[in-house]
């Protein structure tokens, strides 16, 4: 292998090195391009919190990771429940002493 073909440690070639301003400018351009691409047909949007992969990952925390089949099997029930839990989460009585025990 010729010496010129040998790999150099990254950033050691001064000609290739980016200064801070260039880095910021190019990152911003990359971000804008990503945003444009996300709007294009076929582009992959960021995963929603309730995407299959996120639900599988979240289920692992509960001690039993769900299979994709199980996530699909519960989807209707899950969406119905989450819709109503969202309303419940808006409940804010601003009480000084929350009463959490049911007592008829």
């Amino acid at each position, binding site marked *: 292998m010729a010496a010129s073909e040998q790999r150099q440690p990254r950033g050691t070639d001064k000609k290739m090195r980016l200064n801070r301003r260039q880095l910021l400018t190019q990152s911003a351009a990359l971000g804008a391009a990503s945003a444009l691409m996300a709007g294009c047909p076929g582009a992959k949007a960021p995963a929603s919190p309730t995407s299959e992969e996120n639900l599988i990952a979240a289920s692992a925390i509960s001690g039993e990771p769900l299979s994709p089949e199980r996530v699909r099997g519960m989807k*209707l029930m*899950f969406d119905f429940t989450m819709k109503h*839990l969202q309303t*419940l989460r808006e409940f804010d009585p601003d009480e000084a002493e*929350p009463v959490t025990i*049911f007592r*008829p």
Partner: protein
Amino acid sequence: MPADDLCFKTIVEAGPLLRTKRVSPVELTQAYLDRIESLNPSVNAFITVLHDEALTQAREMEKEIAAGHYRGPLHGIPIAVKDIFATNGHRTTCGSKILKDNVTHYDATAVARLKQAGCILLGKLTMSEFALGDDVNLLTGQHPTRNPWNLERSVSGSSSGSGAAVSASMCAASLGTDTGGSIRLPSGYCGIVGMKATYGRVSRYGVTPLAWSLDNAGPMSKSVEDNALLLGTLAGADPADSMCSDRPVPDYRSKLHAGVQGLRIGLPKNYFLEYSTPDVADAVRAAARTLEGLGASVSEVELPHLKYTVGAELALIFGEPLAYHTKYIRQGKFDLYTDTNKAQWDTARYISSTDYIQAQRVRRYIIQDFEKAYEQVDVILAPSTGVEANPIQEDVLADQIPTRQVPAGNVTLWEILWRMPSPANLAGVPALALPCGFSAAGLPLGLQIMGRHFDETTVYRVGAAYEQATDWHTRRPAVSAKA
């Protein structure tokens, strides 16, 4: 007397015949057993029929009555119980493959009290698996319980067999449980009377739990008076259930004939009628007018926190059972559950502790809504189901949730069926379901009467006055006529 005519009698009608020995408990029990044999293949209300044991019990009751030891109005009355109640020496399956061989060796308190009063146990009734989920009974080969008014229609759940068996006169009365409507939904779909009493009024000892903070056991019957009679026997302190109230039990029949003159009836402005189909809403308004015609006053009431009801109910009724069922899931039995319960247990994993606490918190505000309303009125009327009985295939979890057109829009059936019964569960108030009309398809429409905590007496009083002024409870499903 023809056997079927005996089966059509209410408890209050049959009681004097037994007491005066014009009919024997054996004759009555045999009539019901024959009817079960004839109708159960099509209705599928019984998981277990205790043929020999029921007849043995009936002979004992016959001897007692003949000897002058009459126990009271339930002596010699054949009943059946949802298969969630433990009964001594029988299978108690909870409608699940997981417990298909589970034999219990004691009686639940509710069962023991009915037996003590002289009731004869005909058998155990079908139910949605573990009292939650679709009405497909896996134990009987995927055959659902069928509505006696139309065998292609659902009975709803979870006390499916309890509703169908009483409606088809396969027993004089039954026991059900109600955590999110499981007594009132099948009562409404089947045109019978069902009581979810005040939380803690009836012991749950020996009843497999669904959601501890919401569970109730209660009677399902052919008439309001039968129901009041049964609750009077079931209610009362039980040290074996720590949530069971030790308040004295009044005579629930004492005001059944007092009428409603001077009583104040509330119709909720919000929440219920906008999510009911027009025929149901019209029937409920007509019931209010009937009671007004009998001397009650009717006014609108507002229950502002009910908008949180379904979210709170779901957080509790999915969250609490997951804690109970985790033991079975860890034992590798997850695949034995119905598809609906699989979906419910898996959904419950995403209900946070904050959601659960919010749900318990919102209950206090819903209770306060009811208490405030009860300063203006004595009872509140609402639909028990909001819709007529749906086609059976809509009970099974599919790709889409079936919908109905109601004033609020085109909403899912789940939205309606969770919405109607849940406020009384969260608030813990008593709620009586009874028939209030029939749909164009000839299916029963249901009314519920909600009252103050521990004021079942007024609820029954209003129910009895309405029942006496109408004839809905006198109609019988065609399945009975064919037998």
